[in-house]
């Protein structure tokens, strides 16, 4: 198969400031109250699952320290895109996207002094989080049993790809592999084509953090009530299956594998993606209730379609779905997706823009709910950080600090948190423990 270009395309330049500075009504008010006044987390976190979990704590007031090393920086620090296209450990759009409100400690875990600092940090912490391949923490002597010796009521959250134990524990556990092994691509594609991966890539990375966070907050209460810490072992693989349960039960009970039917569903028609005016512009339309069908026909200026015997019931519309989609596409392709959304939503029909990155970046609903936090980053300057995924009325998430440069908080953590003297700090530096 030949591979075409033209799949990545540049659009008109729009600076981030334009979107960030546009005056927007915001859902979020600063109440001055925080969920976590006194929670401390030491994070040995890698790639995306770790940081996305930490966000649920850092954004609500917890002190979150990322233990990193420039000797083997996180893959998200060494991936393009870089600010101004200049590679640099503090310049990647990935790492900095989702690391707001966290501190960075650079520590050489292979040096004895570095490992000692890690242990002091653990003694200070309520929670240790990690998502390496099983074995990495244990190799450092930081498995759960060892952590308990350092801090008896520690809560350790491990989010390995396949869990701490099991035959797959050493498999590479990045999101593409996990999505495939959970079978997600089986649910995506056309009747005459093969399975397709989720477009956003490491899709499972978005799933596990929610489960881990809910369990961790519950475990904090259990600790406060009983004095007992614990090990929470989540397999990213398994949490992904929670998002697909009806399909799995269908196989158990009816011995049926998922089928690929494009965007069609049995219970609604029209229900599809339609082409709009402009290059790569699309809209969705879903008529989910019978009353919406005549409403749609009137809204698109074809009221006669509602009585057309090919389309007058859901059953007939499903039988003649190809012609139905052609009728609708002939209307949508003369319009922008925004026009389609406005006209049909005004008629009470579910319709929306198929938003690309630029559309999401500017989406007024997402902006006002705090999905993005424009902040000034130490090395990159103006940069939009990922914000919150929900709105709490009394203790909303707050953008307090930009993503950290590697080791940015070394001195603060060692002298102010761990109580080292200036001389001791300099000794650690000289010993190469803080790299």
């Amino acid at each position, binding site marked *: 198969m030949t591979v075409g*270009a033209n*799949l990545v395309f540049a*659009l008109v330049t729009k600076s981030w400031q334009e979107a960030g500075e546009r005056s927007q009504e915001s*859902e979020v008010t600063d109440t001055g109250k925080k*969920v976590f006044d006194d929670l401390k987390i030491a994070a040995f976190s890698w790639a995306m699952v770790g940081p996305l979990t930490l966000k649920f704590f850092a954004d609500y007031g917890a002190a979150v320290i990322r233990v990193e090393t420039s000797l083997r920086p996180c893959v998200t620090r060494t991936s*393009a895109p870089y600010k101004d296209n200049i590679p640099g450990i503090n310049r990647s759009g990935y790492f*900095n996207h*989702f690391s707001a409100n966290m501190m960075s400690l650079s520590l050489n875990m292979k040096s004895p002094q570095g490992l000692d600092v890690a242990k002091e940090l653990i003694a200070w912490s309520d929670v240790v989080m990690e998502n390496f391949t099983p074995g990495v923490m244990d190799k450092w002597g930081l498995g759960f049993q060892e952590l308990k010796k350092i801090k008896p009521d520690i809560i350790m959250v491990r989010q390995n790809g396949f*869990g701490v134990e099991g035959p*797959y524990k050493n*498999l590479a556990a990045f999101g593409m*592999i996990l999505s495939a092994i959970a079978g997600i*691509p*089986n649910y995506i594609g056309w009747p005459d084509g*093969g*399975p*397709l991966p989720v*477009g*956003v890539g490491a899709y499972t990375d*978005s*799933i596990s953090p*929610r*489960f*881990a966070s809910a*369990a961790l*907050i*519950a*475990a904090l*209460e259990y600790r406060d009530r009983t004095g*007992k810490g*614990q090990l*929470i072992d989540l397999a990213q*693989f*398994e949490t992904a299956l*929670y998002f697909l*349960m*009806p399909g799995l039960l269908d196989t*158990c*009970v009816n011995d049926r*594998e*998922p089928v690929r039917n494009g965007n069609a569903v049995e219970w609604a028609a029209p229900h*599809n*993606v*339609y082409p709009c005016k402009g290059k790569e512009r699309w809209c*969705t339309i879903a008529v989910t209730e019978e009353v919406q069908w005549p409403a749609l026909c009137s809204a698109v200026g074809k009221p006669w379609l509602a009585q057309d015997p090919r389309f007058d019931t859901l059953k007939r519309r499903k039988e003649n779905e190809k012609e139905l989609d052609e009728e609708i596409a002939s209307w949508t392709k003369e319009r922008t997706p925004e026009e389609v959304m406005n006209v049909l939503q005004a008629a009470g029909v579910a*319709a929306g823009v*198929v*938003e690309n*990155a630029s*559309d*999401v*970046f500017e989406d007024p*609903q997402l902006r006002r*709910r705090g999905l993005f936090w424009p902040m000034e980053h130490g090395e990159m300057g103006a*940069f939009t950080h*990922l914000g919150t*995924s*929900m709105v*709490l*009325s009394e203790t909303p998430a707050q953008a307090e600090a930009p993503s950290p440069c590697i080791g940015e908080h070394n001195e603060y953590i060692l002298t102010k948190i761990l109580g080292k003297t200036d001389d001791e700090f300099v000794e650690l530096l000289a010993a190469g423990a803080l790299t």
Partner: protein
Amino acid sequence: MRPSMLGGYRALDLTDERGFLCGKILAELGVDVIKVEKPGGDPARKIGPFWHDQADPEKSLYWFAYNSSKRGITLDLESVEGKSLFRGLVQTSDFVVESFDPGVLGKLGFGYRELRRIKKDIILTSITPFGQSGPYSRYKAADLTLMGMAGELFMTGDSDKPPVNISMPQACMHAGADAAVGSMLAHHHRRMTGEGQHVDVAMQHSAAWFLAQTIPHWEMENLILGRVGTFRTSSRGTLQRQVWPCRDGYIFFFMIGGQQGAKTGYQLVQWMEEEGMADEFLKGYKWEEFDMATATQELIDKISRPIAEFFLTRTKKEALDAAMSRNISICPLMGNRDLLEDPNLAARGFWKPIAHPHLRTTIPYPRQFARSSENDTETRFRAPRIGEHNTEVYRELGLSADRVEELKKQGVI
């Protein structure tokens, strides 16, 4: 039996399919979750697939999946009697989770302000398509609409075809899971201060939270990453395959190279060499030099050709075995039948058989989303039948058996 983390708390779950997952997560952490349905049953019981394809409200597998571990009652929230019963229930509860359109609960007399009057520190968690307010809050939406407006849909599919959605609804999953986190965040705050609050979760917003791989490209490079089907792309538009046909299905693999990915490259080539399928170029290739950001399309194609031919001669099982024994970053695309027999899930006891006496059968469910060294986090029991726990729950409220019968006759429950 081991204790649960959150034993002693109660949640009233008024959600439909938009919010089922929230209560399911709370229930498995130990909360007594009571699913409140309207008399006759929740319309979401009509969502398939069904047990042996029998479209019956007591046989929805969708319902089974996300309402297991919850008890179930029926209650008419529009009747005077029903409202009074609900007030009694709220007084005994710590969380109310709902997914009505914005304003509906308020019209029933149970908005956050009213609930707070009934129970001062109540936590109300609302799950809606777009949120409680804002320009889109009154918009109608199906999962397709929401995944489209969350930026996920645009990127999924073939480059020469329209975007294509994941056929298992996902926006409700992202939102349901976020709602569980939000409820727990609010609960932690309540534990510290005694103050409740309203958690506002939006399906579009929750589904859009994971665009780390697209938003920075737009902001920093003015690039909009489009659909590349079974490939992966770079900022320069080069493409490499990630889904490879094999003898009995598909293998997922892509080249990373560099310091981190070189090992997989060498191991794969060695495997190919042992099978006599590596060409001279691959045998001599220095994988440390491969970098997707700079690799030319010609180079990618040259590496890919023999790999594609090799994978065509392998099975899914061989790929998985090689991943484990040779430490290669590849994996097969699993089917659901594969998952039901998967050795890793089996070793961790992931499938838990749960009895459905009315269907005279037992169905395996995911046992737990997290294993705990201290607490019970398992799926506890099957989803409730319509009004199954009416007597139990209303008797707990102090109603007599006769009174419960009376309310049934009046159609309140």
